[in-house]
């Protein structure tokens, strides 16, 4: 599904290397987790994959189902099936959440040559999906993310994911700022979307989210590289011992991470 090879990324405006050769391969239907200390480059990886400005790819490749991602505009990547649930979802005053969702879904359908949903059809689908995420009708009417609580924002990200039906979902710190109940709700939403044809890359700082979204593979990222890959037990290990031992093992000082 997702193939990343030797991905090296710098900031565009500054001479600063952030990703220093990332290799990652996520198979179809798999759930991979990336864990790692703050500042290790996890969000950068998610932004570069989804096409945010401000980064320069100096080497390497990233492909989604053999299509070169790095050559596409962000909207083309989305239409190709990539979705990023933001660590900090953006507020857009004056644009109704429903308008936003419908514009997004219909843009992607149009890009893929599918027919666009009418307002009525769309409303029916969105209501159903919103209900399962405990998103009330009010949240659909309000402007995008404006005045939403942390939990509401993250649930809104999952709702977008449910509506857009992407093939490859990247979740960046979807658990940050959530209490246990809110996190469970989000995890349930994600689990409901797990399917044979859909893959996930779950970025998290803590292991607790992975109790609810069970990964097939766990990667540890530090200093712009994947330093270790293993099964779910790797997450338990990090939870118990922290990152220090792992970092030391790879000659990375805590500040560098």
């Amino acid at each position: 599904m997702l193939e990343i090879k030797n991905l090296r990324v710098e900031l565009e405006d500054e001479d600063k290397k952030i990703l220093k050769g990332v290799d990652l391969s996520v198979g179809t239907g798999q759930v991979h987790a990336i864990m790692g200390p703050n500042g290790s480059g996890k969000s950068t990886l998610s932004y570069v994959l989804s096409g945010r400005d401000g980064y320069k790819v100096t080497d390497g490749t990233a492909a989604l189902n053999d299509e070169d991602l790095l050559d596409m505009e962000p909207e083309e990547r989305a239409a190709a099936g990539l979705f990023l649930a933001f660590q900090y979802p953006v507020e857009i005053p004056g644009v109704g959440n429903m308008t936003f969702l419908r514009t997004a879904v219909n843009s992607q359908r149009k890009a893929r040559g599918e027919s666009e949903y009418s307002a009525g059809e769309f409303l029916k689908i969105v209501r159903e999906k919103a209900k399962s995420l405990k998103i009330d009708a009010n949240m659909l009417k309000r402007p995008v993310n404006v005045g939403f609580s942390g939990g509401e924002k993250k649930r809104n990200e999952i709702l977008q994911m449910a509506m857009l039906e992407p093939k490859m979902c990247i979740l960046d710190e979807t658990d940050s700022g959530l209490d246990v109940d809110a996190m469970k709700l989000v995890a349930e939403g994600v689990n409901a979307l797990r399917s044979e044809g859909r893959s996930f890359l779950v970025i998290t700082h803590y292991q607790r989210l992975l109790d609810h979204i069970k990964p097939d593979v766990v990667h540890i990222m530090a200093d712009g590289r994947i330093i270790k890959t293993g099964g779910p037990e790797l997450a338990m290990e990090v939870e118990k011992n922290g990152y220090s031992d792992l970092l030391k093992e790879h000659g990375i000082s805590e500040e560098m991470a």
Partner: protein
Amino acid sequence: MAAAPQKIEAAQTRLDAMELPKGGFTAAARADALDRVTRMGLPGPRDEYWRWTNPAGLNAVAPAAAAPFHPKDEPANFDVFDRIRLVFVDGVFDEDLSDDPVVNGVELVRLQEADDRDIHWAQPVYGVLEAAGQKPVDRPYAALNTAAASDGILIRVTGKASKPIHIDYRHQSEESDPVLHHVIKLEEGAELTLLESGPAGARFNIVTEIDVAPRAVLHHLRVQGREQQRQALTHIFARVGEEATFKSFTMTANGALTRNECIIDIVGDDARAHVAGAALGDGKTGPFHHDDTVFVTHAAERCESRQVFKKVLKNGAKGIFQGKILVKEGAQKTDGYQISQALLLDEDSQFLAKPELEIYADDVVCSHGSTTGAIDETALFYLRSRGVPHAEATALLVLSFMADAIEEIDDEALRDDILSRLEGWLSRHRS
């Protein structure tokens, strides 16, 4: 202080080239206004109030030629609304295109017809609110209008008007230069929605005097057409009485020159006056210069005023805002708010703003702000990452930017009408 000789000469030259009706009931007001504009002179480049808008095109004896729309490109204006439509073509009333002016709760007559008479209900308003609005700043073009207006609509509302009144301006001659003067009087408790659309000529000067009696409600919505070359100068002079509501919203798209002055005197306690505008300019399709000049005076207690102005500018378009809130002595518990914001879609465009507060009462809440910014890159990326193409995402963010101004339109159907006009403009001006 006497005006500079060049200014006086400019006024004289301009007046000499104009036809000045003697007037019936307006005769005294016209003579007085003529006297005032003769002494004030026309705006000059050194006038503080005209620092950012060059009056040369308005001072010229003849207007610069302005191509009208081809009739088939004429946008539909409020056609879906049940309203009384009154049509002016290049400033000349067109009876065939207009509806019978019969509306329950409304007396409606043309200035030109009414001016045959010596006595009229509009007499205590015509030229009177305009003259009152000449302090502390000269507005010579408004005085010139009072003196020279060839026609206009006089509307007296005694109850709840059964339908909106729509003044629809058409522009067909490349050189038309109309001067129109409207008087709207809402009697106590009366209600009216007034719609205006289109450019009235190649260059036009419109004054609207609005007297809102206690507990009356006026909703004013204006769309200033899509034509590129026309020059517009408008003045609204409103007097707002006790517990009355005055709301005015203007959408402007295109136009080589637009200066909309709005002068509001809040004279009764517990009144409300809101004035808002959304302007869109794209220098690629022709020069765009848009100036909102607003002056709100609070002379009563517990009144609320809001000024909300948004401009979206690209390809060298220029936006101006001069807005003032004056709170007079004794106008306690005033709640005054003013915001002017520009969204610059490139580095060639420009926004200049002069927000002012002048307060002589101690128990008031007044705030003002002005910002100039670009499209929020993070929000743009967020939308694109959901599959929304760049141009559409930009359009959504432009609408997001203008939302507070559009919110000022109370009627949902009218709000949607404006929204679809904005969307239409944005889709025609993508690059």
